[in-house]
């Protein structure tokens, strides 16, 4: 192996360090600093936990936080439930052209902006929308029905937006499962359910964990989908952050919220990695 001179190493390290330190690390420490301060007089600040205590004493704030967390977990579970049979079908039931066609078809919607996808759901779900009209036409309902601006609409949008990030790791991991092992399970008297439970799901576990972690993180940090599909009462935590920063101009409280969201996200990711004995690097690679 050709030995490189150290000057090249430092030349390559410089852009990396500048990018990471200036745009990622320092900003987050600044955010922490602002979250931990309190204005005592005009232009006078003091160290304080006031912003965090405000979060815990104001029910609206921590309820929104918990609601965002619980709904993100539900959306992740639902995405897994819907994506698993589809991924299994693509990975194990199909060969050749149909297989790559269906797999590519899965990816296409995600090349399109999230805004456009959400807009599509608004056209489908709103009072004057396609589904409402379809139901009236079929005689199932007598007047227009508003399907937008509720939690179910948010859930549909979140699951839709997350689908790709579940399907890709699942297909990858299921493809690596040898058909012979499934056949052996049947030969030994297993049926569909025992084979799924004892062979397929344990084998797919790394993909399931990767998919769930990525979907959970994306859902938690989502702003567009809850905002547009949930309307005024969507109560998503990122909206609270936006309100504090842009509408109320209370950067201290907004930063504290940002730190809390980061902590929650890291905690869940860490738990997921610990439970599945994986590392962040291996999860991202798949």
């Amino acid at each position, binding site marked *: 192996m050709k030995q490189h001179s150290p000057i090249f190493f430092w030349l390559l390290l410089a852009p990396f360090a500048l990018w990471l330190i200036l*745009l*990622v690390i320092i900003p987050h420490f600044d955010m922490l600093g602002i979250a931990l301060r309190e204005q005592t007089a005009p232009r006078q600040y003091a160290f304080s936990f006031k912003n965090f205590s405000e979060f815990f004493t104001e029910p609206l704030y921590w309820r929104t936080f918990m609601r965002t967390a619980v709904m993100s977990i539900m959306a992740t579970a639902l995405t897994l439930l819907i994506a698993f049979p589809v991924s299994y079908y693509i990975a194990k039931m199909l060969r050749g052209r149909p297989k790559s066609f269906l797999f590519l078809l899965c990816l*296409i919607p995600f090349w399109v902006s999230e805004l*456009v996808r959400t807009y599509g759901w608004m056209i489908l779900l709103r009072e004057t*929308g396609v589904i409402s009209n379809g139901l009236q036409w079929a005689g199932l309902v007598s007047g227009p029905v508003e399907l937008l601006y509720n939690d179910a609409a948010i859930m549909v949008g979140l699951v839709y937006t997350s689908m790709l990030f579940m399907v890709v790791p699942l297909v990858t991991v299921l493809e690596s499962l040898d058909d012979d092992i499934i056949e052996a399970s049947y030969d030994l008297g297993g049926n569909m359910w025992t084979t799924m439970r004892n062979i397929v799901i344990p084998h797919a576990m790394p993909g399931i964990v990767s998919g769930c972690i990525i979907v959970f993180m994306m859902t938690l940090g989502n702003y567009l989908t809850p905002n547009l599909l949930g309307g005024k009462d969507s109560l998503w935590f990122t909206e609270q952050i936006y309100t504090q920063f842009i509408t109320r101009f209370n950067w201290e409280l907004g930063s504290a919220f940002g730190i809390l*969201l*980061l902590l929650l996200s890291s905690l869940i990711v860490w738990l997921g990695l610990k439970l599945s004995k994986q590392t962040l690097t291996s999860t991202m690679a798949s």
Partner: protein
Amino acid sequence: MIPSISQPASLRWTYRAYILMFYIFLIAPLAVVATFAFNDSLFPSLPWNGFTLDWFTGDTPQRLGVFSDSAMLESVGVSAFIAFFVTALSLFVATTNAFLFERYDFRFKEFLYMLMLLPLVIPGVILGISILISSNSIANHMDEVFNLEIEFLRPGLVLVILGQFAFITTIATMVIGARLRKMDRSLEEAAYNLGASKTAVLRTITLPYLRPAMVGAGIVAFLMSFENFNTTLMLTSSDSPLTITMFDRLREGSTPELNAVSLLLMIVSGMLALLSVLVQKKEDA
């Protein structure tokens, strides 16, 4: 269940019906967006009043089509401007990152690689506000100490570019790094043995080998920048890029013009996606 093991027909058909429903679910929102771009009505909803191209070419105030809507066209320009700089910056840093992590061994390499992945884990809104806070505190400091007002550190195009560059670089690094890892080092060794200099090897062997990955990463970076919403929302000011303009219009209540813009976006991103798939195919060959 696999094809070689027979299952009851009812189960097979249920499974197929489920897959079909899944794809309807996947396609439906995009299909309605595209269809209503051609509806001869002031609202993107039923009833269907017949086919029109007004939402593309119309130029009356009630029926302003995309191609006559100067505010919309301007925001497309803003988005393209941002995406160009984000792509250039992130490709450069991603390439140096790829060489750093694939060709050198150093202390804390694992740890630094994990830090490199960090921007993917941080929610876009938070990445946006953290950069807003930092640049704002520098700007305030400059203002107080040197009485200098530094315009580009306030919300606006430069901050949007920096915010998007912060996380898109990670994605580009992963694409280019994966390609560099697969490279057969003996190609370079052979060139060195034949007396080539370091720059000659880089220029004639290594970079041409990396080119498909760089084109692919460039397309992805451009699209991700063009379509980014969360980070941009926190850092933008009056020159709003396309996604922000569309979002504002959407909340005011939309005309089918938005469908027309969306359809054009779908076509362009679809073509870029196809291009990147083709480039990848060539790469594997």
